[in-house]
């Protein structure tokens, strides 16, 4: 028996897409190592029987439900540690996302288990799970093998596809947990605050995305002018660094903890191409990058790269596209 335990994050009565990906992946891999996929959910009244049972549609056979604070990692570590102590799952699996990193790492400490993060592929080998992880700016793949009773696998965002299957309702089991003292010492004051205007970037065919290389908040005017020149279904997106700095709205953010997009054209202006950004846009059909640093990682996965000063290039490109459109 080698069961896999996943954590499923939810917000306002809906499960997180990356968590559902983890359940789907867990169910597929568990069947290869002769086990089942189980899920842990932690929260309040919105975790109804019906909602929890619905995880069966992604392959979970049992859902362990605990009442507790939402959006914080340490209470979930307490719940998962208890569930594993009582049920003996062999692996803990997390979809991409900030909480998965925190819970997985904390659980590794609590259970003295091996942990691998940023995993993009999990496979079965001799009845055990093996995790593949890109390292050194994605230039190499490293393969993790686990020892001991528990192996912890934290996926990269969007690594695991959400797959609906014909599973029936999952069995819902309530877990009574006495939370650690320190788990009660962090309290959510406000969750999910949206900062800046609400913009839609997920439906756009053409995205002009700006990063720190734009130099200042006003630099986004160049990106907006270019997007406007393309016209039609185009929009402006941003990296986490500039969103955190308050240059552009949160709703326009690409990448880890932001949106995942796959437009026909993704034009990256002043974006270095960190992994956290790459995971949110690498499926774009055509990637064009403009950056003054010839060594920027983004040139390693762009289809067309321009090494130069975007303050010179963007205005002229905007004019040229306007002229084409007009002509």
């Amino acid at each position, binding site marked *: 028996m080698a069961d896999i335990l996943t954590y499923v994050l939810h917000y306002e009565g809906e499960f997180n897409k990356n968590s559902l990906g983890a359940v789907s992946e867990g169910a597929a891999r568990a069947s290869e190592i002769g086990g089942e996929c189980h899920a842990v959910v932690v929260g309040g009244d919105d975790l109804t029987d019906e909602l929890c049972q619905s995880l069966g549609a992604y392959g979970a056979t049992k859902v362990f439900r605990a009442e507790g604070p939402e959006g914080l990692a340490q209470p979930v570590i307490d719940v998962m540690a208890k569930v594993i102590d009582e049920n003996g799952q062999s692996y803990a699996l997390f979809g991409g996302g900030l909480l998965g990193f925190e819970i997985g790492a904390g659980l590794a400490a609590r259970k003295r288990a091996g942990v691998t993060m940023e995993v993009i592929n999990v496979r079965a080998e001799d009845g055990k799970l093996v995790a593949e992880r890109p390292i050194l700016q994605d230039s190499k*793949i490293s393969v993790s093998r686990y020892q001991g009773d528990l192996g912890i696998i934290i996926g990269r965002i969007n690594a695991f596809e959400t797959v609906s299957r014909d599973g029936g309702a999952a069995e819902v089991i309530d877990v009574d947990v006495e939370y650690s003292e320190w788990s009660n010492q962090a309290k959510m004051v406000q969750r999910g605050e949206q900062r800046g205007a609400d913009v839609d970037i997920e439906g756009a065919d053409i995205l002009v995305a700006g990063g720190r290389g734009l130099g200042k908040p006003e630099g986004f005017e160049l990106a907006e002018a270019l997007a406007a020149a393309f016209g039609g279904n185009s929009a402006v997106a941003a990296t986490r660094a500039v969103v955190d700095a308050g240059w552009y709205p949160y709703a326009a953010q690409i990448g880890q903890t932001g949106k995942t997009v796959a437009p026909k*054209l993704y034009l990256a202006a002043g974006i270095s191409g960190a992994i956290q950004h790459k995971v949110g846009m690498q499926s774009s059909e055509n990637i064009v990058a403009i950056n003054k640093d010839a060594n920027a990682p983004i040139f390693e996965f762009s289809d067309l790269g321009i090494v130069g000063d975007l303050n010179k290039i963007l205005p002229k490109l905007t004019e040229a596209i306007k002229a084409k459109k007009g002509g």
Partner: protein
Amino acid sequence: MKICVLVKEVPDAAVEKRIDPSTGRLDRSGEKNLNPYDTHAIEAAMQLREGGAVEVDEIVAVTMGPESAVRALHKAVSLGADRSLHLTDPVLAGSDVAATGYALSRALQKEQPDLVLLGQQSDDGECYTIGAVVADHLKMPSLTQVIKMDVQDGGLRCERQAEYGYDTVQVSLPAVISVGDAINEPRYPSLKAIMGARKKPLETVAVGDVGIEASEVGEEGSRVQCGDFHEPEAKPPGQIIEDEDTDETVEKIVAWLEERKLI
């Protein structure tokens, strides 16, 4: 208040990183630098000290690593730490994340800090995880990727971006907080601070000095083995244009876009 800042020596971003085929570990020779994310953690400690909302008695830089890691400590001290603690021992080599976090937590226990700060990720391993491992061993509340931190109600009011937007979390002390690079702009050390860094107290400890069980660290104590390093499926490299004549560059971009029916 006593603040410990966890710092780490990483290969300089300008040096090509590689795996040593004989050991399967990251080749850590070559130019080394203080992990850039850690400079934000030191700056956060300095701003708490200078902010006046709380009395900061001492800022201690703590690292685990070989002898060369002393340079990261010197850099940390030049940026404002008062003294440093170097955990170094041959048996620590090859420790995985869980073992490293355990070892660091033991070194921190000796210091009894009110706050542990660290950078949210390191430039070499890209992991967001050490803070959470350390916190569980120290039995402290913890938060990672914090981009704003204020002293409030005897604890810290922290903000970060999570799955559904920005979260605000009130954390009691003592706590372990890992910070993102948006939290501040680290200052540059003065020449005087750089010159003086070597004169600040530096304590070196081995596993036995801080109660680390040798069987729980190093390759032996690590529950995950990494190997089979191989190349990923690579996308063919794209076309690169060096912008010399911008009009010409723009013409090329437009032609490229037209060819793909994107205009």
